[in-house]
C-alpha cells in the first residue's frame, strides 16, 4: 500500500476554488467513504477547514490513484483543466511529513495556530467511524497527533499572540486574570474595536458598554454584542466602572485626556484600568499612561507585539521540522 495526499489550501487556491471542495463537518465521514470507493484505494480520510481541503488515501499505486482522484474531483466540480494547478500532490513519506506539518500548525495561514489540531482529529474520527481507515492511515494519523503534541510542547511555535486583537486580550488577562469580573467599554463603533471586544467577551468579559457619536450605531453594536449603549457625552460616567476601554473613534484629536481619568480615580478606588487605543490619530493622550494604575497600549505597541510573536514563531519552523523528521524516522510507517 502507498500513501498519498491530494489537497489545496489558502496558498494554492483562491477562496472561490476552495469553497467548491469544502466539506461540512457532518459530511466528513460520508466524504471519506466516497473517497475509499476510488479504484485502487482501500482507506481514506478527508480534512476540510476554511483554509484547506485535503484527501488522504492508501492505495496500491499512489500515482494511479492521484490521477483517478483528480479526475473525479475535476469532473464533479465541473472545473476546467487549469484547475489542476491549484492542487498539490504528496506521496509516501512526503504525505506523512505534510500531515505532520499541518497538524503542528506549520502549514496554517496563522503559523502555529492550534485549532487545526482539533479539526484534523475530528476529520480522522469521522473517517474512523465511517470505517474508512485501516492499518496505514490509523498509524499515520496517530503518529501525526503525537508529533503535533511534541512540536507544541517542545517549541514555542504557539507562543505569543499574532494578531492585534489577541495581543490586547492576552494583556487584559495578564492584568485582570479571569475576565469574568471585567467590564469593557468601546468608544467608537468601528470594526476593529468590535473584533477586539468580541475576543474579550469570548474569554468571559462580564459586560460591554458601547459609546459612539451616532447613538444609533452604538445601539446596533451593543445589541449585536449583548451590551449596553451609552450616549457619547456620558462615556466619562461609564469610565468609573469599566476595567478595559477600547477606543477607535475617527476623532482628529485626542478624546481622553489625563484629567478625564484623574477625575474618576477616586470613584474607581484606584483599580487598574487598561486602555486599548486602536485609533489613528490616537484617541487617548499619551499622558494618560503616566497615571499609576493605567496601562495604555496604542495600535503601534500592539502591532509591534504581534509582529514580534510572528517573528518568534517563524524562527521556530526549523526546530519544528527537525522534530517532525526525527519522529518520522523513528518508525517505519506503512505506505511511506
Amino acid at each position: 500500500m502507498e500513501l498519498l495526499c491530494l489537497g489545496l489550501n489558502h496558498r494554492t487556491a483562491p477562496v472561490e476554488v476552495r469553497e467548491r471542495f469544502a466539506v461540512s463537518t457532518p459530511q466528513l465521514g460520508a466524504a471519506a467513504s466516497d473517497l475509499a470507493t476510488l479504484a485502487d484505494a482501500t482507506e481514506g480520510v478527508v480534512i476540510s477547514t476554511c483554509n484547506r481541503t485535503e484527501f488522504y488515501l492508501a492505495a496500491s499505486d499512489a500515482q494511479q490513484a492521484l490521477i483517478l482522484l483528480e479526475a473525479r474531483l475535476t469532473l464533479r466540480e465541473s472545473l476546467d483543466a487549469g484547475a489542476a494547478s491549484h492542487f498539490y500532490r504528496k506521496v509516501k513519506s512526503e504525505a506523512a511529513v505534510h500531515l505532520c506539518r499541518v497538524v503542528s500548525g506549520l502549514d496554517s495561514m496563522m503559523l502555529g495556530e492550534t485549532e487545526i489540531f482539533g479539526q484534523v482529529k475530528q476529520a480522522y474520527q469521522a473517517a474512523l467511524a465511517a470505517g474508512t481507515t485501516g492499518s496505514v492511515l490509523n498509524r499515520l494519523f496517530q503518529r501525526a497527533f503525537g508529533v503535533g503534541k511534541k512540536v507544541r510542547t517542545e517549541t514555542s511555535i504557539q507562543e505569543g499572540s499574532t494578531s492585534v486583537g489577541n495581543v490586547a486580550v492576552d494583556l487584559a488577562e495578564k492584568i485582570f486574570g479571569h475576565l469574568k469580573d471585567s467590564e469593557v467599554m468601546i468608544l467608537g463603533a468601528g470594526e476593529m474595536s468590535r473584533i477586539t471586544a468580541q475576543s474579550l467577551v469570548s474569554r468571559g468579559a462580564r459586560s460591554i458598554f458601547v459609546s459612539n457619536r451616532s447613538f444609533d450605531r452604538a445601539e446596533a453594536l451593543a445589541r449585536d454584542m449583548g451590551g449596553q449603549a451609552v450616549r457619547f457625552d456620558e462615556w466619562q460616567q461609564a469610565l468609573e466602572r469599566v476595567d478595559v476601554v477600547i477606543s477607535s473613534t475617527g476623532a482628529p484629536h485626542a478624546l481622553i485626556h489625563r484629567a478625564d481619568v484623574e477625575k474618576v480615580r477616586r470613584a474607581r478606588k484606584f483599580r487598574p484600568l487598561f486602555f486599548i487605543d486602536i485609533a489613528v490619530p490616537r484617541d487617548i493622550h499619551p499622558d494618560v499612561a503616566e497615571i499609576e494604575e493605567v496601562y495604555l497600549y496604542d495600535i503601534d505597541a500592539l502591532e509591534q507585539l504581534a509582529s514580534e510573536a510572528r517573528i518568534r514563531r517563524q524562527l521556530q519552523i526549523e526546530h519544528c521540522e527537525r522534530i517532525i523528521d526525527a519522529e518520522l524516522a523513528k518508525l517505519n510507517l506503512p505506505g511511506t
Partner: protein
Amino acid sequence: MDRWFLLIATLLAAIGGTWGMISVHRGTRSHWTVAWMVAVMFCQFGFLSVRGQLRTACPLHDLGEMLVFLAWSLTLFYLLIGPAYRISLLGVFSAPLVFVLQSGALISGLFTVSPQRDPSPNLFHSLHSATSVLAYGALALAGVAGIMFLVLDRQLKVHRLKSGLFRNLPPAHQLLVSLERLLWLGSGLLTLGIVAGFLMPPTTPLHSHLIVAMAVWVGYAALLAVKTLRGLTGRKLALAAVAMFILSLVVFARV
C-alpha cells in the same frame, strides 16, 4: 541533628530557587517549585521539632530560632496560598528569602548550639512568640507578592513583555488579591500575638518589643484601612507591603 535539618533545608531552598529561576529564564513553568518547598518545609519542621524538644517549649528563644521559624512560616503560607492560586512563581521568589533567612541563622551562629530547657514555660509566652513570627511569615510573603507585582507592573507599563519572567508571572489582579489577603492574615496573627503578649507574666513594665509590635500593627492596620475605605493603587500597596516588612524587621532586630 537540628543543624543538619537546617543545613539541608537551606540547601533545598537554594536549589529550589535556582531551579525555579532557570525555568523562568527559559520561559517555562517551574512545576517542581511546590515539591522543593514541601521538602524545605519538612526539614524546617525537623529543625523546629528537635529544638522544641530540647527546650521543652516553643523554639523561639534566640534570634537563630526566630529566623528559622520565620522562614518556616513563609514557606507554610506559600504552600497554603501558592498552589491554590496557581502562583508557583511565588515560591521561586520566596525561596531566595528563605535561603537568606536560614543562612543568616546558620552562618553567623545566631542560634545557641546547646539550647537550655526553658525553666518556666508559659503558654502565653509561647503563643505570643509563635503567632508573632507566623504573622511575620504572612507579612513577608505579602512583601514577596508585592515585589512580584512591582516587576509585572513595570513590565506592563513600559511594554517589555518578551521575557520568560513576564510570561510566568501571574496576573496583576491575582497578585494584588493574594497580597491583600496575606496582609489581613498577617495583621490578624499579629493582633493575636500582641494580645498574648499582654497576657504574659509581667517581667518589665512593658516589653520594648511589644511597643514596636504595636507600632507595626498600627502601620499595617492603617494600610489596610486606607486600602479598604479609600482605595490604593496596586503599586502603592505593593511598595507599602515591601517597605513596611523591611522596616519592621529592621526595627525588631534593633530592640
